[in-house]
């Protein structure tokens, strides 16, 4: 389904398109937004911008040409900024400035890339393939990699994620970073990429280095943020292999990761809210105080590491199988290293929470149902998407359909 609307600048139109890739992304956004809605009310500004960013995310998902994609993408970057600095602390404001500097520089590169592409090929809709100068593609890829948090332009993630309110961290990690990867997938849908050795190298480096940093970070939300950088680099890694199955794995990984990481950030928010815990080293006995929350946390961690039959396993398996098929052994090694690193930075948290003695005893303080349910739902989704992965209409089927549409 397509609909071509206004001509925003000469020859470029506002163009909406609904295809498998867009449907999957929009549906993921819809469900994740539902999960972050409950919880304490935070005022008009917050609610309004949360709704606005949802609409803009849908816009990213349904954009039908490059201009429309960039338009929603940049508006989303700006709409998310007041949410990140919602707490109004000096720290938050500093993180917000850094976030803006990063995403706006990325946006400038994207616009320049779009200008180069437009000069060469006119209006680039996602239904066609075009020949464009390599410079345009490189600029666009570089622009998207800021949001996708690839090294060395990842700097905003470990600052912005920990400082934002928990639901916003969940959205940032689950979807904001994913918009960058989504943009990259859209790119290779329309243009033949230049040799992708650099993308492979950069994303492999990102997976490993960010994973290593995560194991050495004590601040819980910051550790999760580094984990996001590492885990989301799987998508560009999968793209760079240029194999249809690996690409399908990358696409479905966006969805699976969104729920797992979103759930983990919500858990971190509950821990902070009810127990005042910010650091991993302070988490001793947390599971005894909040068994349901930490139960969900454990399950989501296992999913993220890639234990069958959870959803994280499915996406990694599909990516890995694609890589093996294409004979891309180095990316495959990186993929497995990433999983190992995930175990190294997540399992200690789980271990501390369940088995270490608490600093002080206290009553059970699991949150009331309205805030607990989203966390449990995220865990349930992780199980269902893992077990039911092969069912028609589930993300994997959609991702495969999307990858078929892209070729590769």
């Amino acid at each position, binding site marked *: 389904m397509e609909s071509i609307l206004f001509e*925003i600048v000469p020859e470029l139109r506002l163009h909406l398109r609904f295809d498998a890739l867009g449907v999957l992304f929009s549906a993921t956004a819809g469900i994740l937004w539902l999960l972050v809605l409950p919880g304490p009310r935070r005022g008009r*500004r917050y609610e309004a911008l949360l709704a606005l960013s949802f609409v803009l995310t849908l816009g990213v998902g349904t954009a039908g040409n490059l201009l429309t994609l960039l338009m929603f993408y940049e508006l989303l970057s700006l709409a998310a900024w*007041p949410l990140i600095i919602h707490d109004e602390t000096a720290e938050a404001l500093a993180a917000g400035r850094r976030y803006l500097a990063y995403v706006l520089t990325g946006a400038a590169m994207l616009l320049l890339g779009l200008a180069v592409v437009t000069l060469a090929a006119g209006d680039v809709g996602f239904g066609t393939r075009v020949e464009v100068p390599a410079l345009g593609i490189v600029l666009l890829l570089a622009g998207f990699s800021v949001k996708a948090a690839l090294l060395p332009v990842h700097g905003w993630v470990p600052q912005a994620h920990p400082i934002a309110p928990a639901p916003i961290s969940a959205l940032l990690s689950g979807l904001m970073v994913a918009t960058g990867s989504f943009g990259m997938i859209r790119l290779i849908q329309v243009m033949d990429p230049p040799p992708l050795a650099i993308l492979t190298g950069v994303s492999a480096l990102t997976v490993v280095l960010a994973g290593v940093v995560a194991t050495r970070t004590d601040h819980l939300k910051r550790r999760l943020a580094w984990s996001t950088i590492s885990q989301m680099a799987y998508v560009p890694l999968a793209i760079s292999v240029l194999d249809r199955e690996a690409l399908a794995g990358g696409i479905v990984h966006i969805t699976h990761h969104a729920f797992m990481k979103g759930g983990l950030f919500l858990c971190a928010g509950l821990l902070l809210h009810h127990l005042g815990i910010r650091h991993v080293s302070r988490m001793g006995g947390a599971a005894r105080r909040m068994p349901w929350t930490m139960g969900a946390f454990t399950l989501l961690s296992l999913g993220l590491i890639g234990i069958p039959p959870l959803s994280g396993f499915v996406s990694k398996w599909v990516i890995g199988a694609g890589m093996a098929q294409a004979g891309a052994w180095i990316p495959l090694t990186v993929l497995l290293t990433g999983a190992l690193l995930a175990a190294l930075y997540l399992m200690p948290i789980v271990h501390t929470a369940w088995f270490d003695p608490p600093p002080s005893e206290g009553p059970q303080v699991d949150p009331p149902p309205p805030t607990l349910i989203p966390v449990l739902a995220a865990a349930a989704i992780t199980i269902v998407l893992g077990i039911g992965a092969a069912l028609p209409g589930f993300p994997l089927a959609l991702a495969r359909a999307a990858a078929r549409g892209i070729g590769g």
Partner: protein
Amino acid sequence: MTTHWLPALVAIPIAGGVLVPTMSRRWAPAWGFGVLIATLGVALFLTGLLREDTVSYAVGGWPPPYGIELRFDVLSTFAVPIALVAALAVPFATHSNEPVTTPEGVAVILVGTGGMMGFVVAADFFTLFVFLEVLSISAYGMVAMSEERGAGLAAFRYLLMGTVASIVILLSVGLLYTLTGSLNMADVGQRLPDGGLPLHLAIGGLAAGFLLKAAVFPLHVWLPDAHATAPSAVSAILSGLIVKMGIIGLLRTPGLEHLHELLIWVGAASLLAGALFALVQDDLKRMLAYSTVSNIGLVVLGLAVDRTGATVHILNHAIIKASLFLAAGAFIHRAGSRRIEGTGRSMPLTTSAFAVGGIAAIGIPPTGGFTGKWMIVLGALEAGRWGFAVMILLGAVILALCYARFVVVVAFRPSPADREGTSEAPLVMLVPIFVLAALSVGVGIIGGPFAAFVGK
């Protein structure tokens, strides 16, 4: 095509302005608003006619190139934002304490509007000069309306620079006349010699004068004081409309292609310098003033690479910058002083409009700020001037940080304890702000057809 509505476009506001001082204080703003709305109607009507043909009018029946000719062409469509912004500024100002809506104040605004109308429809350089002076003298008067300490000085410095510019322009017009024996623009353009020192002096002089009027870096020094001390409603007129007259003057200058290399560098310098100066301002209105310097730089650069893009951008920027200055005025009005920290907390509507204006000023699609900027970037790339395309985008990033900074000041900083219980801006302020903010997005959504109309 000819119609008497064309001279009416100039005559209505000027006649209206001359009559105001006879009125009571109470009726002056209403009269001013009515006259400006009527002018807006005429401007829209003439723009409608333009779809078929350019409208020309020979004053006193003397045919051009001998007599005075008025001509409504694509550039003259600037009459629409002129009438609109001026019309909205009048009700906006009724609520502030500044003496803008006294009979004298309204008179100055009306005459200034008439001057601008005459300037955009003038088809010979002599008429152009006369109306340039009418609008400039009104502008000096508008700055002096502010009761703030130092406003008189700011107005005087503005007058000094503006008059030097006018003198250089008059001198160049005289030179052009001795070179071509004509003052009619179309005529002068045809009779222009191919080169030589006098030609370069004449064109260079015109360009220098108009660049000074447009406040291009490093000739911008008069602008921040004048625009920041003026009452906010007036700042909207000054920053949105009056500096653009310099650009329209440049667009009317014949043989401008001799100066492209100069314009592109001056424009780029102004673009970056304006943005960097804006970054270090602590006062919202001064930041907006420097942002205007930056945007004027973009337009001057655009004159050399894509004239249509530059024209589109002055039209859109007029509306965007006016909405921003009006929003700033609303914050200052509610805060009671220039210290506006946290005022936005109790003014969500004004803050939203300010944010929309900021997004448009940065040039994010689909707002009006994007269309022209995009066309100029494309033009720069097409001309192989890579570095300039990069500079334009860099300037946009810096400006974005400036606007973000003031969104934080207004909406994320705590308001001082003595200012609890402020409320949303009154309706006469909100409506003008929202009309302009909505338009600054609206013209962007239809940017394609709009640019096609302007480029015709």
